[in-house]
């Protein structure tokens, strides 16, 4: 009797220890802090990790709105949901991602499964669920300068630009004067101290000649980006607004782009109605064609 009791007690103790140990090893939900004098490459690598939540294991965005406003003020909205799992180089994978269109009805059901690789020279593997044909089609990665969901963002800016696509140069530090959003009229990130980095694409004849990236010195988030053409004219600006909860993961509230040539403004709102959730233990099995086949629409 006594021996059985001791065995049970030992088992329970070991179980508890295991749980505590596992908890201690649980991935942190925040990016590591920046060094005191970071280089341009360090800053851009940190931003890349934040943008693709590479410091977390998985993330779910349940309510994404893509709001497209043309220069006349005409507005269209598309809704989407997204899940991502970060594989940290396991079997050569960087991350796997599924995005579904949820609104409007005539595009609802379109879903994209993406497998991204650690090798920056390797294109993503992509599968589309085509609702009108009720079938899955494997496709090559769209040209990265193509529009993302019909917006002014390019596919590269939202999904594919990797650290290593550009060469970087730290050009100084400055205080960001703030960005007035066309979405809600508010001014964000006023007086935020930033590092300024110039990025030059390695691809020849690309859609931009260079861009200037403003990185928040405290958080490592790129708050603002300026895109310049061959003639040195700024033709596009992108603003990122992140939320930094005290005990949670950084998450983007919205991204906004304005194209000076077309007068179009587009906003991707990600955390306004429902906060994204991190590290919920999504299985890698979710990121397969079986999931695409679940679409009813």
């Amino acid at each position, binding site marked *: 009797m006594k021996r059985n009791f001791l065995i049970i007690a030992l088992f329970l103790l070991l179980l508890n220890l295991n749980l505590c140990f596992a908890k201690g090893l649980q991935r942190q939900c925040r990016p590591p802090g920046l060094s005191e004098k970071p280089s341009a490459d360090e800053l851009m690598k940190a931003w890349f990790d934040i943008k693709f939540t590479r410091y977390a294991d998985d993330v779910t965005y349940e309510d994404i709105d893509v709001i497209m406003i043309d220069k006349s003020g005409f507005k269209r909205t598309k809704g989407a949901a997204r899940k991502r799992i970060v594989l940290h180089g396991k079997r050569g994978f960087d991350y796997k991602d599924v995005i579904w269109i949820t609104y409007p009805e*005539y595009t609802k059901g379109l879903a994209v499964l993406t497998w991204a690789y650690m090798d920056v020279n390797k294109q993503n593997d992509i599968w589309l669920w085509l609702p009108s044909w009720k079938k899955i089609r494997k496709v090559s990665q769209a040209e990265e*300068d193509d529009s993302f969901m019909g917006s002014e963002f390019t596919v590269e800016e939202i999904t594919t630009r990797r650290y290593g696509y550009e060469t970087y140069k730290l050009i100084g530090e400055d205080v960001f004067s703030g960005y007035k959003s066309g979405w809600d009229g508010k001014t964000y990130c006023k007086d935020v101290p930033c590092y300024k980095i110039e990025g030059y694409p390695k691809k020849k004849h690309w859609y931009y000649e260079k861009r200037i990236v403003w990185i928040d010195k405290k958080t490592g988030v790129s708050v603002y980006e300026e895109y310049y053409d061959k003639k040195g004219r700024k033709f596009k600006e992108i603003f990122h607004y992140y939320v930094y909860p005290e005990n949670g993961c950084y998450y983007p509230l919205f991204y906004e782009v304005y194209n000076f040539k077309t007068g179009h403004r587009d906003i991707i709102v990600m955390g306004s109605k429902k906060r994204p959730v991190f590290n919920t233990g999504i299985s890698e099995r979710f990121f397969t064609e079986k999931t695409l086949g679940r679409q009813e629409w």
Partner: protein
Amino acid sequence: MRKWVIVLLVVFLPGLGQATILKKGPVTVEGYIKSETGVYPDFTKWIKIMNIVDLRGQYQPRPWLSFYGRLYKYWDFAYNQEDEYAPAHQAMYTNRETWQGISWVRELYIDFFSDYLDIRAGKQLITWGTADGIRVLDKYVNPLDWREFTLKPWNEIKIPLWMLKLEFQPTLNGTLQFLLIPDFEPDYWPAPGAPFCPGIVKIGKTKMEKLMELSREGIEGVPFDYRIISEERRPGEKWGNSKFGIRWRDVLGNFEYTLNYIYSWETESVERTTDIDASTMDMGKVAQLANIMHKTIPEMFDFFSRNRIAPPGSTFHFGQRYHRINVWGGTFSKTFVGGPLKGLTLRGEFAYVRNDYKAYYDKKENTIKWAKTDCYNYVIGLDKWVVTNWLASFQFIQLIRSKKDVNGNPFLHLSGYPMDKVETLLTLKVSTDFFHERLKPDILIVYGDDNDWRISPSFYFEWGDHWTTTFGAHILEGKESGLHGQFNDSKEIYLEIKYSF
């Protein structure tokens, strides 16, 4: 009552102007109302005047459990407008039995999701294969509604079936799909007179008309008054008559493949049977005819036999016989993510059908018969993004039969004309978008090796969050013997206006 419900929906729903008619917690209800109008290019004839209501609902109380239903109903007023469609109108729109597979309830199923096993049970559509514009493996799962030939997206013209789908995922990327389909529906062919009635159906109609004429008019003024009984003879509703399908899918690096097998029914080329029961013959009329023609009774029977005429009063049993077939096949897809072919997707699909039934014309007996032949069908496709957002997709398709003919009688096309042992098709689809994906033009070109063409350009435009329009054309050219050329008189330009809610 149902018509009034639809009228109310049509009148009130657009006025709501809401993004979704209903989205509350686990319940979502959405849908659309669409008008499709097609006219012959010189505007002398309507091809279709369709109004469609589509309503979908989902109840998902848990992430792993979902109930889904879809109602779909349409009316085609072209059949009221065009006199030449009148015979089809009678057969297709008033004959309730013909509509068995085409009901209001288009899909209705329950889903169970998990990491290792997904289950979907109910009325549903399944898609096998990677081909565009043609069904190689897919045709043996869900049958097709051929009323508009193959000019519409498969989602709208495939006939849903009651079935059980299990999708088991034993490995990370490998899935085993099992289909149990106890429901039976044949392909739905438009009746003679309809704009897309294929030539082979018209041949059958011509023969029937001759038979009816003989029945009414007879010979030498003596009507034959045949009894005509039509029976469909569907497979009985028992488990042994179910379709069973299995598919293994896996991804190895950038290479993805499936292996498919299905024990199915041939529902596209259905054998037509004619049994003549001469025991019901009217001897009085035989004697009357013999008297008029100055023949004896035995000489009359000899006359009937030599001229392949059934005696007066005989009973004709017309039926359809469905045959079981075994289909083995597979698909593959490979996207080149690096190297000189970077960005190119190569895909393929193959199906071997053992003992498929195909129609041929027996010249000696002057009638259409059916015979077994093995079929080997395959598609090779290439997809590539060219110049930023232009997607080009090319396919090479061959449909091969193991037999060229039956005793010198060639097998028949859908057009009713002889088909080659090897039929080759080429397709090219080019699509792009403008104005931030609001305008999406595309063009599909299908070329058959007998100089048979289909060219289908379309322009799709999104006006806002609810309204879309599509303007396009289906140009069908070639000889009357061709797959598309037989519909020379049904080429159309069309306009679709859709309101989504």
